[in-house]
């Protein structure tokens, strides 16, 4: 049942992504409507998959790479749908859905067994800390998509090359606004995720902060976005500068999420080590 839901979601995301990319080439309203419908139904199936997995495991399904990548993807699609509704920028999908699809494909590579949690991790903090972290990641992912669009559009306007893609992309103002909105949603979420993580660490591992690689990189990510928000609010960092920072920030965020798991490391956040304790 779970596998069926998972692969149907993957399939729908693949077709939706194809539709959004086709829309980028040929922006016809029926194609756009189809793409939006596909991604929304994919999202519904994906949410069902996550719920069903939660019920089966008895804990929030963010405990190994398969689950985390899938949850990340779910959050990206959810945040994208919300922003697309709000700003009516359908073409944002052409830049965001490929990312959601990639995350799902990556998730499908990893074994989908339900891990046995060590007692220290069986806590409601898992739900709060991890899901908040991923929703904040997702808003930064949407900001990343908008930032890429911004840089492309700004390049066209500065170089005065106003081709077909220029016509299809929205105004700089809208793209910058999406970037800013993502930041004002994502940053508080990331802050709360880090704080709840520290509280949980204290109850589970006995210390609030242990300069674990994941913690260090999260802090670096936090500082980047804090700098961006500060710059925006005080000296008016906007436009190109803000777009570049949103892209750099997202790169570091991806490293925080994946690098800690994929590179050999001593992080307590590594899923192998998180779960390894009980298996051995």
């Amino acid at each position, binding site marked *: 049942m779970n596998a069926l839901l998972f692969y149907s979601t993957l399939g729908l995301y693949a077709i939706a992504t194809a539709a959004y990319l086709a829309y980028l080439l040929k922006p016809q309203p029926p194609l756009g409507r189809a793409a939006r419908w596909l991604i929304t139904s994919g999202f519904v199936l994906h949410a069902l998959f996550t719920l069903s997995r939660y019920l089966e495991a008895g804990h929030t399904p963010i405990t190994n790479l398969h689950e985390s990548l899938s949850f990340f993807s779910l959050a990206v699609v959810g945040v994208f749908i919300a922003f697309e509704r709000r700003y009516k920028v359908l073409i944002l999908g052409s830049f965001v859905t490929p990312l959601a699809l990639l995350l799902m494909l990556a998730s499908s590579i990893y074994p989908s067994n339900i891990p046995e949690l060590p007692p220290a991790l069986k806590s409601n903090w898992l739900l709060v800390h991890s899901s908040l972290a991923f929703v904040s990641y997702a808003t930064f992912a949407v900001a990343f998509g908008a930032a890429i669009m911004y840089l492309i559009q700004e390049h066209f306007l500065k170089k005065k090359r*106003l081709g077909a893609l220029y016509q299809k992309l929205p105004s700089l103002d809208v793209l910058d606004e999406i970037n800013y909105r993502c930041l004002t949603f994502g940053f508080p979420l990331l802050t709360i995720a880090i704080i709840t993580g520290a509280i949980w660490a204290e109850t589970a591992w006995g210390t609030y902060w242990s300069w674990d690689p994941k913690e260090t990189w999260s802090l670096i990510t936090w500082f980047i976005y804090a700098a961006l928000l500060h710059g925006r609010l005080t*000296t*008016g960092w906007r436009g190109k500068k803000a777009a570049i920072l949103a892209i750099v920030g997202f790169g570091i965020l991806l490293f925080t999420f994946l690098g800690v798991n994929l590179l050999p490391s001593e992080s307590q956040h590594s899923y192998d080590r998180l779960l390894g304790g009980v298996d051995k």
Partner: protein
Amino acid sequence: MNIVVVGLSHKTASVDIREKVAFAPNHMEKPLQELVALPDITEGVIVSTCNRVEIYATTHDVAGGMARLKRFLADYHTIPLETLEPHLYSHYGEAAIRHVFRVASSLDSMVVGEPQILGQIKTSYGYAAEFRSSGIILNRFLHKAFSVAKRVRTETRIASSAVSVSFAAVELAKKIFGDLTDKTVMLVGAGEMCELAAKHFLNNGVRGVMVTNRTYERAVRLAEEFGGRPVNFDDFIEQLHKADIILSSTGATHFIIGARDVEEVIRRRRQKPMFFIDIAVPRDIDPKVNDVQNVYLYDMDDLQGVVATNLEQRNKEAEKAERIIDQEIGQFFKWLSSLEVTPTIVALRSRFEEVRRAELEKTLATWKELPPDGQKRLEALTSAIVNKLLHNPTSTLKRTGQGGRTDLYVDALRQLFELETEVPQEEELGELEE
């Protein structure tokens, strides 16, 4: 029934001819009624804009109808037909349909893709509907033309490109600022181009206008005209940060706005984007201004470059539009030719029935010793003959109604049997809808 078009446009007649044959928009009742009073003109619509005057009409007699329409145009405006004739074009059948679809889709406009023409045809049709000069065929025809124009508009990007310098400037501003309603424009210097562009910006909802000029009185006068406020030329740089869009066209021989000025201004604006449009030759604004972050500078050459790309793109879109029109013509033409099938069949049947009844009554009246069931049997016999004879032509006609040259059959039948058919009423046509 044939659709015919007679008219002239910017392509065939200069403005001094066009203005002579133009119809005044608020006095359409008289010409429309005179039009449909012409012999063998059953329906008529008059489209009159500053770029074209055209009559769309339906008639059975194509050649005669077109001649009468030409004469009508000349007589109504009391111009000798010989003067008018060389400027007139006329189309019928498929060519007429294509012409009107192209006009409505703005493919025949002076500025291809401009959106006004559709509205103008709708208004003209409105008069025709009001004064009842249009009927079933033209109603359907024009509604079809509107839907074709809509399809062209949504499926091609023919209307999306700006092909004048000031339109191009507004389009660029929209790509930078999104919404223009809370933006302020500053006019530096004055000139026809500059004022035209300012008007375009105002039409697109720009909120504030500031005007500066070397002669302050000129600035005051222009500011009044645009509902803005004048700025002293000596310190306009000081006021620059209040403007989002700057339109410059002074007669200065050197740059009056430098990159350093703009860097300072953009800092004061906390990086809120600015759009500089330099339409002066020689230029007013240092091209290095374009390198300042969040600042976009377009000079006259840049804007003309934009216009040229747009034109090229639009030609490609126009080809797409022509293909859409080709498809739609086929559909409409099918409907038009099927329009007369049913009434022709009805008329043919009643003609046969008439003959049968007349002959039968003649026989019955003179046949003294008719057997008791004789009348019944004669009725059956003659009806059977008529039905058998009509069966083949009827079914052939119905079949060709779904395509093929129905009009040939209809015309042949009508002439061979001297049929008089009435155009069916609107409600009877439901089933013929495409």
